[in-house]
């Protein structure tokens, strides 16, 4: 269980990126965070990843407060961020140096097969397309079997077709070990197709407007009536998020499915 209690982040220049964020994410849950730019959604992820420290509140995994990067928490960024001097196999095995060589190579081979790039182990990152590189980045984060995987707009730099393909890949990979997924995205459809719950955030300071439970069976059709209805609801929340925050509470937490 990943839990955040009244988490706030104020930067040295006085900008309040996050204030009073309280959230619990159950093991194996897929949580999506949506919101306009500057609403603090990426900051939230970086705090959980331990890349930045919170200025207020508490972040804990299974009751243990987090201080810095945690071995059970992995992160995938918007860009693949593969290390250009390592081959694809070297990149995937980056977090596996504690294993013996045969064990590491077996894990890498399995991961390569799982992301559909079985023969790519010896290639350099520069030889990959954007979608392939992001799949390798996913494998690198998942091969260490984290309990929580954070994804910071992982597919936003890809074109629509490859994005849908990778969303499917993500669900398949998730179903292997069922880690908790926290997915930051500005793509509402992506959030609704993938997530169990969608957190809507608003800026100045970054905080949670609403948490919607998406009680639809998977796989979800992108054009289903339920999904489109939910999409309108989220869009409405985002539109109203700007001028007056209080209004948002008027919306029901659960959709009439």
């Amino acid at each position, binding site marked *: 269980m990943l839990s955040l209690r009244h988490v706030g982040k104020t930067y040295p220049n006085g900008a309040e990126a996050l204030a009073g964020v309280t959230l619990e994410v159950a093991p194996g849950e897929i949580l999506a965070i949506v919101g306009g730019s500057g609403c603090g959604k990426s900051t939230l992820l970086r705090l959980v990843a331990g890349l930045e420290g919170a200025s207020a509140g508490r972040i804990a995994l299974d009751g243990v407060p987090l201080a810095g990067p945690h071995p059970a928490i992995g992160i995938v*960024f918007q860009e693949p*961020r593969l*290390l*250009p*001097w390592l081959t694809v196999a070297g990149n995937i095995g*980056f*977090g596996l140096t504690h294993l013996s060589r045969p064990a590491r190579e077996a894990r890498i081979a399995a991961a390569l097969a799982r992301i559909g790039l079985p023969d790519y182990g010896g290639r*350099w990152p520069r*030889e990959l*397309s954007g979608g392939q590189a992001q799949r390798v980045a996913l494998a690198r984060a998942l091969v260490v079997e984290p309990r929580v995987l954070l994804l910071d707009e992982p597919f936003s730099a890809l074109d629509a077709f490859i994005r849908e393909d990778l969303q499917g890949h993500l669900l398949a990979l998730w179903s292997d070990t069922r880690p908790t997924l926290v997915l930051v995205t500005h793509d509402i459809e992506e959030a609704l197709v993938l997530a169990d719950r969608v957190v809507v955030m608003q800026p100045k300071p970054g905080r949670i407007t609403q948490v919607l439970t998406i009680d639809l069976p998977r796989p979800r059709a992108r054009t289903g009536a339920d999904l489109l209805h939910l999409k309108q609801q989220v869009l409405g929340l985002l539109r109203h998020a700007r001028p007056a925050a209080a209004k948002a509470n008027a919306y029901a937490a659960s959709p009439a499915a």
Partner: protein
Amino acid sequence: MSHVEGLPLTRGVPQRADTRLRIRRQGRWLLGLLVPAGAALAWELAVRAGLANGRLMPPPSVLGATLLDLAQGGDLALHIRATLARMAAGFALGVLAGTALGVLTGTFAGVRAALDPTLQALRAIPSIAWVPLFILWFGIFEASKIMLIAVGVAFPVYLGTLGAIRTVDRRIVEVGRSFRLGRLALARRILFPAVLPHYVVALRSGLGLGWMFVVAAEFMGASEGLGYLLVDGQQLGKPAQILAAILVFALLGKLTDTLLVAAAAPFLRWQDVAQDVVPGEPPRRREPC
């Protein structure tokens, strides 16, 4: 084109494209050779035909004979050894100092704030200006020469190392941090490989400056070394000897630079822009789909 047709067809299209590239690369290499070779030939013919007096600018044949003469007497090997020994010691010392200072200032902001302004000020001094002082400090023998070379080498290496460390992509460092690498592991697994390409460039410019300073060093009263051949050739009016020494300098400079690049190449195979790309040619990017 017969080279291309002679290839077994099973090698496929990319291989053929590689071959074509290689042929074009060789073509350009030959083209680059055309100008100096043509100029040398023209000068030789001009002197032979009596159109020019070759005394102050000896033609290639005289130059060749002088080189051969120096080589046969064993003088050339002696002078090359002396110069190479000074160069090696000065370069090693300069690289060591430049790297150590670059790593320290690049890693610790406090050290940078304390040292960088002073180092930049020292760098602004034309290094030849140190010569009189170095002679007073270290004498006129090897120590002062090696120190001068080391000073020349240290600054470009320092600047390059500092710059490379300072410009390492923060996003790649975050990958290391998210895998909980400690300071040392981060340096070894992320910073070192990220810095390496720039560091090699810094070493190369250090080497180039080292060759400059070895000449300056040997001007200050050396009794052997290629720089001595230059001074000797001027004082005794032997332009062919001067040109011969210059030629050897050019060859040694190019040779050592090539060796440095070759030594670094296995570690830089991952780079997008490899040395084997023709200058001015966009780097090839394979797009497997």
